[in-house]
């Protein structure tokens, strides 16, 4: 898989924003957008998110309609000053999390760092077993970006800059 080469400001957003707004399209053609914690695996050229098996609709949508998007528009907690807003459009591959590959471990680590309170759940054997269906029985959505739209300083009043990733890197 190709390395993802991004403008520095865009790379910073994809690495540091706590959440993105992840959109899938359901059977009726209705977009559904929910916040999600993304992990950028730049070396492998993709972004990974995951959902609980208890709430798999996002994964089912993406399996049926792989075209998805991730908007990075809320910089809370990122530490970035006047970051751009970034929309990633790409194709999602969906799989149950049964192997603990570096990108899945990276996602777990990202959640643990950004949400320190979550460690109370993962480190406590009793709570961990009660919430197995939420913490560990998960389905991954691995997104290979095709196009990136950038609004400098998050200014949606302007038209975005468009980066076609087929021409990058």
């Amino acid at each position, binding site marked *: 898989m190709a390395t993802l080469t991004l403008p520095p400001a865009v790379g910073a957003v994809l690495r540091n924003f706590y959440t993105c707004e992840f959109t899938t*399209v359901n059977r009726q053609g209705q977009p559904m*957008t929910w916040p999600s914690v993304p992990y950028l695996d730049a070396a492998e050229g993709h972004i990974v998110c995951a959902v609980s098996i208890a709430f798999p609709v996002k994964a089912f949508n993406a399996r049926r309609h792989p075209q998805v998007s991730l908007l990075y*528009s809320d910089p809370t907690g990122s530490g970035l000053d006047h970051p751009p807003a970034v929309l990633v459009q790409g194709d999602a591959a969906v799989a149950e999390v*049964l192997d603990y590959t570096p990108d899945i471990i990276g996602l777990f680590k990202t959640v643990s760092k950004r949400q320190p309170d979550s460690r109370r759940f993962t480190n406590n054997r009793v709570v961990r077993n009660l*919430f197995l269906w939420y913490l560990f*029985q998960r389905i991954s959505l691995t997104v290979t970006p095709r196009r990136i739209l950038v609004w400098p300083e998050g200014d*949606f009043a302007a038209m975005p800059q468009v980066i076609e990733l087929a021409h990058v890197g």
Partner: protein
Amino acid sequence: MWDRRLAERARSYPTGVLSWVEPSGDPVSVRVAVELDEPRERVLFPALPPIARGRTGLACLLFHMHDEQLEGLRQVVLKGELVADGASIALEVTGFVTANGRAGTDEMPHAGAPLHMLAFYRLGRRKAKEYLAKRGEPWPPIPFEEIGRAVAEAPD
């Protein structure tokens, strides 16, 4: 269907994320300021981003927030259709969706609210059982120690 309690919660957000689907099949999202028009069950956009102008068809509007510890999570989605509304467009709302196991609130469950957490636990466990029943075989054992070690050793 309009939900007055969730509409009131939606009003507390400074902006929302509007999404639609391009003819190519690619979803697009932008952050927008909104005005809720309750009598007409529509959401108006006083300063629609240029990329969204003239868009019509199925759409949704997400409101969400979190703090700097990724706590205080709130989220609600308004489903609907973008329709012409005078010189602009509006979201004609067909439904409100939360993902928290309770009606009437956008607050996500938290250990600090045990009753809410219990409702979420019961919902999640029931849904997970349904998934596993369709899957047809149990989920394999999870190597917690191995995962813990790998997470600790993974680069920041």
